[in-house]
């Protein structure tokens, strides 16, 4: 093809990493889930072109991969915001007022569970248990845990994340 742009010579470093992951698991029994997990670690989510690439490499139809991706909570098809908020709603957090924390954060950020703010600052996810039941109710932002919360503490915590 004529008029090739100079970037065609550049190889996307993420692509190299992805191919390494694929080659590592390709010949395992049941390679799909470990490859998807690795790919998500590289890209932060699973873009369509990545799923297509995996499909070709391990000869599993895109439809089947899509079925697996949408089945498991871990996989995401859209990018995350700069800060990922996980609100724990395990049973312990629930009985200690976790629902009020969810409501407060949803009102504060004006987004619902699973969504990302327009400015890409926060993604909100309600999850089933962080395992810090002793600190209930808890949230974690970028894996940093904030425990023993009450609704009035939320604004101050969110302000720390840009």
């Amino acid at each position: 093809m004529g008029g090739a742009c100079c970037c065609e010579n550049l190889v996307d470093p993420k692509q190299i990493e992805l191919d390494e992951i694929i080659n590592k698991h390709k010949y395992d029994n049941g390679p799909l889930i470990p490859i998807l997990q690795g790919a998500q670690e590289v890209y932060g989510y699973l873009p369509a072109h990545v799923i297509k690439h995996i499909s070709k490499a391990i000869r599993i139809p895109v439809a089947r991969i899509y079925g697996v991706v949408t089945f498991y909570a871990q996989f995401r098809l859209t990018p995350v915001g700069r800060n990922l908020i996980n609100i724990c709603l395990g049973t312990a957090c629930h009985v200690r007022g976790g629902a009020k924390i969810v409501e407060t954060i949803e009102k504060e950020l004006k987004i619902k569970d699973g969504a990302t703010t327009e400015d890409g600052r926060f993604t909100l996810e309600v999850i089933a248990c962080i395992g810090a039941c002793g600190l209930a109710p808890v949230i974690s932002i970028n894996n940093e845990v904030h425990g023993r919360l009450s609704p009035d503490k939320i604004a101050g915590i969110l302000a720390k994340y840009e």
Partner: protein
Amino acid sequence: MAENQRILVCAGTGCASSGALPIIDILIDEIKRQGLEETVSVVGTGCQGFCEKGPTLVIEPQQILYTRVKGEDVAEIIEQELVKGERVERLLLVDQETQKPVSSMADINFFAKQHRIVLHNCGVIDPKKIEDYTAREGYKAIEKALKEMSPEDALEEVKKSGLRGRGGAGFPTGLKWGFCRATPSDKKYIICNADEGDPGAFMDRSVLEGDPHSVIEGMLIGAYAIGADEGYIYCRAEYPLAIKHLGIAIKQAEEAGYLGDNILGSGFNFHLKVFEGAGAFVCGEETALMASIEGKRGMPRVRPPFPAVSGLWGKPTNVNNVETWSNVPHILRKGAEWYTQFGTEKSKGTKIFALTGKVNNTGLVEVPMGTTLREIIFDIGDGIQGGKKFKAVQIGGPSGGCLPEDMLDLAVDYDTLTQAGAMVGSGGLVIMDETTCMVDIARYFLNFTKKESCGKCTPCREGTTRMYEILDRITKGEGKEEDLDTLENLALTIKETSLCALGQSAPNPILATLKYFRHEYEAHIRDHKCPAHNCSALLSYTIDAEKCKMCSLCAKNCPVNCITGDKKTNTPYVIDEDKCIKCGTCMDKCKFGAVTRA
């Protein structure tokens, strides 16, 4: 000063969340600064169990427990404890009865009333060091099995111990192994189910984080007894620390010759891999779990054929949960007879419970089967937070049920709990007080099972959604009189007709709350009142203009800024009902009792 002291810092997920990790570094620095590194060592351990008071640290050999330790306390602890041999009183636990500080773990009910078999290494050893494990008789059981016992002997010993599956259903472990052993095949698998998805249960995670070698050793014995040469540990990806520690442990076990080919020169081969689950509660069901390892959507299938006949990739497979595997080395080392002295007639050994909710001592406790709920909640758990009244205990997570106060003297074992309408399940014990609404709890669990239903069978997929919708309506004050009958009918049908245990047990929280707390449902439906003052839609907050001193404290603390007023213009504060999320912060903050709830 005592020779060779050890400082054990809990570095489990709970304490790490409370800030334990920097403390380890500060301790090491401070010990160096004081020139004590010859005689004092610092160990980052797995979960010590006392999550409520975390970060915790224990000074050995005296077994002094320090609670809620912060970085700035470290210098004082070292100075007092290690140099002068005195206690730092303000960091000791205060006994609720005597109101005096207690220092020794032996005097603290939380520890003294437990009996730790599975947890005997958790919080005591460094889980990242195989030599810590072997120093406490680790890998002695597999050595004994390989050198002195035939696979049949090992299987027989586990059968005699009466060990039952700790994952929930309580199926006899030895019997299960026997089925798999009896199936002729060129290849067999064993799997450790570490997909602990039950919200409010974290014992499997703690065992994996705090004593990963015990699970590996248990699996080795199982593989030897069954005749398997390959194994998987299916661990949720949400447990990064457990996965990390497992990876280290497997590598060390391989290097030490406990995993791999020709183990300890016996000719027995066993290879072990960790598979990271991708977040689906249903994968705790064994056929779904195997589908997931095969790279498919984790959906259960009809049994038979049972996994013992046709499991992973069509080969005979045996699946047990973490706690079950971790029991096995103890049984082999000390014998089935020793093991059967703990527990009740039909439930032998101990069980780990994750004690959470409105209880004073949140944490991980291991007690002999047959211990009463009262002992667990009031002796070990030290009763209800804030002096409130106990209302119910939820046992067994989304598959279990809530039991009321008059069942507190029930001895906890598989059969009595199932009879009472709850189940041991994975062992989550969530304590609820008078401010917990039981309808809301049922709604909460159904919301969970509805989301986690894999969608394969109609009763579970549609049924959990319909039940959730009804419960949601009731908590909003829109319930109808006939709802309760509909709920009961639906619940019983779903229980009977669902494909796997997820659907079959999903109605349990409803059935149990309807059985023991029907009046709360009726209050929501008939009087549009939530007796626990929990359901937002049935609450309203108002400020009494007479009592309001216009201090603005409520408005300042309101997370959604729905309270307005002004002292300058003498306008008492009022709440905008449309914006109010009924969190109750204003009521908690008001010093004049001006905020009322109806």
